């Protein structure tokens, strides 16, 4: 008989070997994105297909610039955490770690490029 609490027995037994913080982050960012995404689709939809001047004007508007930045940042965080969940479901060990590093780095990189572009257009 091992004197061990139920919690201690369960800890680290999930596919990801840790708690529910990532799931909770996905819920929080999902609610945020649920509000932002429809507005962004409208903004991007009106801009795409137009000339460069019109595109620059649309994305230099403060509301459009801030909203697009938020969508990009939280979209990429949501992607990074979501793809990490997926990687933890299908791979283990070194492969898992390398894939997680790749996914996280890629998401941060793409986010940085997009934010730079938005800043350059808006300022």
């Amino acid at each position, binding site marked *: 008989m091992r004197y061990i609490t139920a919690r201690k027995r369960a800890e680290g037994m*999930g596919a990801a*070997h840790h708690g529910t913080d990532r799931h909770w982050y996905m819920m929080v960012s999902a609610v945020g994105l649920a509000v932002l995404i429809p507005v962004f689709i409208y903004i991007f939809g009106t801009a*795409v297909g137009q000339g*460069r001047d019109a595109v620059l004007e649309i994305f230099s508007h403060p509301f459009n610039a801030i909203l697009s930045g938020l969508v990009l940042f939280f979209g990429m965080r949501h992607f990074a955490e979501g793809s990490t969940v997926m990687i933890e*479901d299908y791979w283990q060990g070194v492969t898992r770690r390398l894939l997680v590093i790749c996914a996280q780095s890629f998401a941060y990189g*793409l986010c940085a490029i997009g934010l730079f572009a938005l800043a350059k257009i808006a300022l």
Partner: protein
Amino acid sequence: MAETKRARPLSPHIQIYRPQLTSTTSILTRITGNGLIIGTMLVVWWLLAAALSPEAFETADWVLTSWFGDLVLTLSVWALWYHYLAGLRHLYWDTGNGLEIETAEKLGWACIIGSVVLTILTIIVI
């Protein structure tokens, strides 16, 4: 590290799992969510090109408005709406409701049909 002590089985076991509406809609959530990175790359490239120079924008805009760009963007809009609805379904499930098989299947159909309807609406509005 717990990981080194014992190897836990990976999930889910696609090879031995019979495809059902609930599992298919669940896998689609994952595919659409991760697949959206392709559309995001295209849009970010387009934004960067717009910020940099008229020549760069011309190239990016040509790709984005070509049949290939149209295809990627249209699929991305559908993926976005599907992932959106499926995400709302997950938030609802996380409250502990709607987990009965019959309700879950109805919600699955709502995601599939709803995403197609919203995609068509988006194309009409924009």
